[in-house]
C-alpha cells in the first residue's frame, strides 16, 4: 500500500517499474535483517513420584520473554535472535506440575507483603546465559545451544531457602533439507528439555534443598533417586 502510494506520487509515468523495484529492494532489505528463531517444541511430563508439597512459581518478564540477540562477528555471518521465552514457560510448567503435588502461579514476586500460607516454597528460575554455535562458525557439523540457569527457592515472604546454578545443552546434527533456523530450534528444544532432565534428577540433591526437605519431614531422596 505504501509502495503503491509512493510510486503513484513520485513516478506517475513509470509506476509499474517503480513498484517492481521497490518490492525487490524491500525483499533485499528483509533478507539483510537478523535471523529470528522463536523456539517451539513439545515437552513431556516427567515420570516421577511427585513431592507432597505445594510449590509457588514466579516467572519474571526477563524469563517469559527471554531472547538473545547476537551480532555477527564477520561480514559472512548474519545476526541472530533466538527467543526461548514461550518454550521455557511451557517446559517448566509441565515439569513442575509433574514434580510437585500442587503448583501455584504467583501474580507478584515473593516479598515481605505477600502471604500465601498454603505455599511451601516459591521457585524463581532465571536464564543467565545462552550461547549457540552453528556449523558455519565451528566447522563441526552439529548445531549446539548451551544455557545456564540460576534458581532461587524462597518462602512466600521472599526469605531465601536455596540458590543454585545449572547448565543445559542441546545439539542436533546437520540434516538434508533442514534450514539453520529449524536446526537451531531443534537444538534449543533439546537444551530446554535437557534443563528439565537436569532439574528433575538433581533438585533433591542440592544441599540447601535437602536441608529444607528434612525440615519439612521429607527424606531428601523422595521423588527422585
Amino acid at each position, binding site marked *: 500500500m505504501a509502495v503503491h502510494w509512493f510510486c503513484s506520487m513520485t513516478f506517475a509515468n513509470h509506476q509499474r517499474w517503480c513498484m517492481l523495484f521497490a518490492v525487490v529492494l524491500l525483499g533485499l532489505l528483509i533478507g539483510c535483517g537478523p535471523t529470528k528463531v522463536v523456539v517451539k517444541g513439545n515437552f*513431556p511430563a516427567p*515420570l516421577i513420584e511427585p513431592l507432597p508439597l505445594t510449590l509457588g512459581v514466579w516467572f519474571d518478564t526477563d524469563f517469559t520473554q527471554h531472547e538473545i540477540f547476537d551480532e555477527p562477528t564477520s561480514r559472512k555471518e548474519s545476526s541472530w535472535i533466538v527467543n526461548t521465552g514461550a518454550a521455557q514457560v511451557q517446559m517448566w510448567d509441565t515439569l513442575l506440575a509433574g514434580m510437585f503435588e500442587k503448583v501455584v502461579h504467583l501474580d507478584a514476586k515473593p516479598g515481605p507483603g505477600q502471604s500465601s500460607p498454603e505455599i511451601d516454597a516459591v521457585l524463581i528460575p532465571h536464564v543467565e546465559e545462552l550461547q549457540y554455535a552453528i556449523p558455519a562458525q565451528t566447522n563441526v557439523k552439529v548445531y549446539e545451544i548451551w544455557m545456564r540457569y540460576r534458581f532461587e527457592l524462597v518462602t512466600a515472604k521472599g526469605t531465601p531457602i536455596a540458590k543454585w546454578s545449572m547448565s543445559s545443552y542441546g545439539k542436533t546434527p546437520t540434516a538434508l533439507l533442514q534450514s539453520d533456523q529449524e536446526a537451531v530450534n531443534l537444538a534449543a528444544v533439546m537444551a530446554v528439555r535437557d534443563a528439565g532432565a537436569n532439574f528433575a534428577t538433581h533438585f533433591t540433591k542440592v544441599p540447601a534443598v535437602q536441608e529444607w526437605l528434612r525440615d519439612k519431614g521429607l527424606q531428601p531422596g523422595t521423588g527422585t533417586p
Partner: protein
Amino acid sequence: MSAASMRTLLLTAGLALLSACVTSNVDQMVYNEPTQGIGDASVVILGRRHGSDYETEPDFVKCVGDHIAARDNSVTVIDELEFLNALYPWFEPRSAPMHPKDIERLLAQQPVREKMAALKLEYMIWLDGSTVRSGGAGALACSLGGCFGFGTWSQDANYEATIWDLTDQAEVGHVNTSATGQSYMPAVIVPIPIIAPVQGTACDGIGEQLLAFLSSKY
C-alpha cells in the same frame, strides 16, 4: 537378440551403473540368546547421544526398528521418541543408564517400574555410532545453462548395537557393523547423483543380526 530385449538389457545395465558400490562388514557376539524369540514381550531401540562431536542419528535408529518389525511382525519394537517421552527424564543424553546394572536404580522408582511393566519391556538395544563423509574430490559448476563437472565423495558408517536383558539386568550381546561406499555426481547440464547407500547397508546388516536374536522365525 530382439530390440525389446536389447532395451531391457541396456536399462538393467544402466540401473546397475547408477548404484554405487558399498563394502560392509558385520561382527556379532551373543551370550544368551532367547531360544523361542522374545515372545509377546517388547524391545526398544535407543540411540546413544552423549558424545560431544557426533550423535547416533534418529533416522538410523528408526531404520533398524523398521527393518526388524517389517520382517517379523510378532516382534514389538517401541518407537524411540515415544519411549523417551514416556520415560522422561530417565533416558535423556545426560541421565541415560550407561550399564545394565543402572536399570536397577531406575526400577526402584514405582512410576518407572509400572511404566516398564505396562510396556512389557524385556530387551533394550543401544545403538552407538554415526555415518560420516570422509573425503571428497572433483569440481562441479552450475550456471543458468546447467551444471558441468564431476564430484565424488566417500562415506563411512560405523555402528555398534549393545543388547541388554532387563530381566537379568545383564548385557547379552554385541553387534558391530561398518560400511564404506563411494558416491559419484557427474554433471553434463543435469547432475546425475549416483549415491552409495552406506547408512542403509549398515542398517540392513545390523537389523538382520538383531532379528536373528529377537525373532523365533530367523
